């Protein structure tokens, strides 16, 4: 009899498995036809902002909706913010793509950096934004009005928010007499003391270094690399690996390594410099004379945003000079609205100049902002290495 039970169980389990597979296949087929049908609409966003829906769901870098300024927004508009802090660009992309993509009908806005934004646009996870509904937009520093990382073919997918450089940081008690150039991160003298981000976009930092140190490679833009330039960059990074102590996944990990003395120099963000100096760790931040790569963040509107009006109200609110200044000083970054300058100085004297908000436009030529690498990089020959190639190379470098 027990043999018969066994048979029943085995056949039962097997037939259930078949049913499950059939359902899975059916579901896949279904999503196929759906995605092929939804690529035809191209509008430039909604025409007006209706009344708020009472809720706003954000995927954000920590503190990007800090209560210091978000409370006032909630009181003014009645849009109550539900926030999900993300630790990396990749986490943001995964969150946006969960639940069928487009924010899964759960998320309204994501504060994507330039290395994530094109991926979200090309992946069809975003919807166009009508920037005419954001009054402060026309006051933005020109390069942040329609930057390549959030505007494609003249269609905006969000509004620029803040930016910051990737800086060279070192411990003044360990690195003497100090460093001032990116070459330090490739210098065998500092073997076992270096940390850099664990992010494929870091390849651009090496390309940026080669752009200045090896002009014969002809690199014009560190995100647009042909095979030869890309291979040279990857080789440089493979050499750098021997010197690297830690590829940090979250900036807080890099920060901890600096604080605990495990690393003495590396590439990190200004927010970490501020946090370390706050804890009395002897560190100094440098933006080398050649310039730096940088990130620029955008509030981007999810394709399936359930509360679009609250989302527009939020983009409107965070682009006003006062909020721009508040956020910049909370996070340690630079506003895209130059009118924030006076408000920054009001909160913290001299901070406008410290964060380079008063620089002339030519200053931005030295900062190469993150953007997702794509094959069609504008040179007409379609021969640039795309993000998949960057990711594969990065696995090879760090693996």
């Amino acid at each position, binding site marked *: 009899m027990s043999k018969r039970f066994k048979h029943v169980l085995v056949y039962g389990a097997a037939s259930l498995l078949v049913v499950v597979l059939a359902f899975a296949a059916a579901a896949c087929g279904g999503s196929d036809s759906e995605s092929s049908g939804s690529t035809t609409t191209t509008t430039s966003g909604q025409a007006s902002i209706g009344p708020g829906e009472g809720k706003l769901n954000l995927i954000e870098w920590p503190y990007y909706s800090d209560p210091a300024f978000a409370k006032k927004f909630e009181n003014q508009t009645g849009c109550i913010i539900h926030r999900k802090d993300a630790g990396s660009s990749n986490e943001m992309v995964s969150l946006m793509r969960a639940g069928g993509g487009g924010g899964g009908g759960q998320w309204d806005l994501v504060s994507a950096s330039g290395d994530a934004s094109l991926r979200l646009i090309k992946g069809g996870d975003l919807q166009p934004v009508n920037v005419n509904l954001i009054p402060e937009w026309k006051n933005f520093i020109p390069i942040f009005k329609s930057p390549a990382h959030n505007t494609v073919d003249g269609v905006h997918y969000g509004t620029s928010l803040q930016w910051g450089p990737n800086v060279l940081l070192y411990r003044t008690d360990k690195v003497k007499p100090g460093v001032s150039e990116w070459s330090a991160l490739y210098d065998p003298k500092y073997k076992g003391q270096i940390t850099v981000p664990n992010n494929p976009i870091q390849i651009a930092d090496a390309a940026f270094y080669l752009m200045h140190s090896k002009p014969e490679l002809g690199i014009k833009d560190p995100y647009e690399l042909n095979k030869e330039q890309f291979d040279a960059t990857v080789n440089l990074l493979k050499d750098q690996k021997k010197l690297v102590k830690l590829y940090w996944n979250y900036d807080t990990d890099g920060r901890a*390594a600096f604080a605990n003395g495990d690393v003495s120099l590396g590439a990190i963000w200004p927010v970490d410099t501020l946090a370390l100096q706050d804890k009395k760790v002897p560190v100094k931040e440098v933006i080398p004379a050649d310039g730096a790569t940088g990130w620029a963040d955008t509030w981007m509107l999810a394709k399936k945003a359930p509360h679009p009006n609250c989302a527009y109200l939020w983009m409107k609110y965070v682009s006003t000079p006062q909020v721009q200044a508040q956020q910049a000083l909370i996070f340690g970054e630079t506003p895209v609205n130059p009118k924030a300058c006076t408000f920054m100085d009001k909160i913290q004297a001299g901070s406008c100049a410290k964060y380079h908000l008063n620089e002339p436009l030519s200053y931005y030529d030295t900062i190469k902002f993150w953007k997702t690498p794509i094959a069609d990089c504008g040179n007409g020959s379609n021969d640039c290495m795309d993000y998949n190639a960057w990711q594969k190379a990065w696995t090879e470098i760090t693996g």
Partner: protein
Amino acid sequence: MAEIAEAGSPLRGARLSISAFLWQRPWLKVAALLALPVLAFAVVYLGSLAALFVSSFWSVDSFTGKVVHSWSFGNFSTLIHDPIYRKIAFRTIWIAAAVTVTDAILAFPLAYFMARLATPRTRALLFVLVLLPLWSSYLVRIYAWRLILAKQGALNWALNGLGLPDANLAYTNTAMWIVFSYVWLPFMVLPVYAALERIPQSYLEASQDLGARTWRTFRTVILPLALPGLVAGSIFTFSLTLGDFITPALVGGADSQFIGNVVHNYVGISNNVPLAAAFATLPVIVMAVYLVVAKRLGAFEAL
């Protein structure tokens, strides 16, 4: 009373007939009992494994980053031909094996003491101590280890106090080995304890009566009988290490990627789920082989 009896009798009759019906068809009883767990098993366990396996044959459109549902072996051939994946797979399996051996060596004397030598009071205390780390989050304990191993951390502080140089363990594969061995140790101690406790005292006495010395008794009586427990424990330590990605990310260094990290990166960074799925089938295969061998060694009798 009479009313209750009257109201109860048809109900009782129904119950009796149901139970008679089931008694005559015992397979129905078993089916009803197991329907829910079997359904959960099929959908949750086998379903997700099947989805993993199926998606490993798909590919990703490099322009939009979307998954293309067409069948190919491209992912598997990438994994086989690109040496970096072999290196990562080898590193993962090698460290999982090292952790398993380390835990077996650490757990055996402790489990032996607990099972055969300790007084009931000491045994209870040791149980609490072995299980105590499980009360706090695994993540918290990894962060604690990072503080211990850091250059300006507790370990180097103690070494310097003894006049010794820095250990320089932070962000290395050695650090990963230490942390893994620490976090999975309880999962080795418990099955080994269970196996050792079941060895009857009379076997040991018989062995001694027949002239075997301590070492011989250990080698020919205790160890073979404890082996199923060791193998059962090793299933835990090996599989838990094999599938981990948090420890390598937090205490590993520049040369410490695991299969799990690559999977995590491919899903998270480039949204290349198919390649990630293909790589993730490797631990499944390794574990399947491991479990077959473990079954031969009688591990499942000690669980």
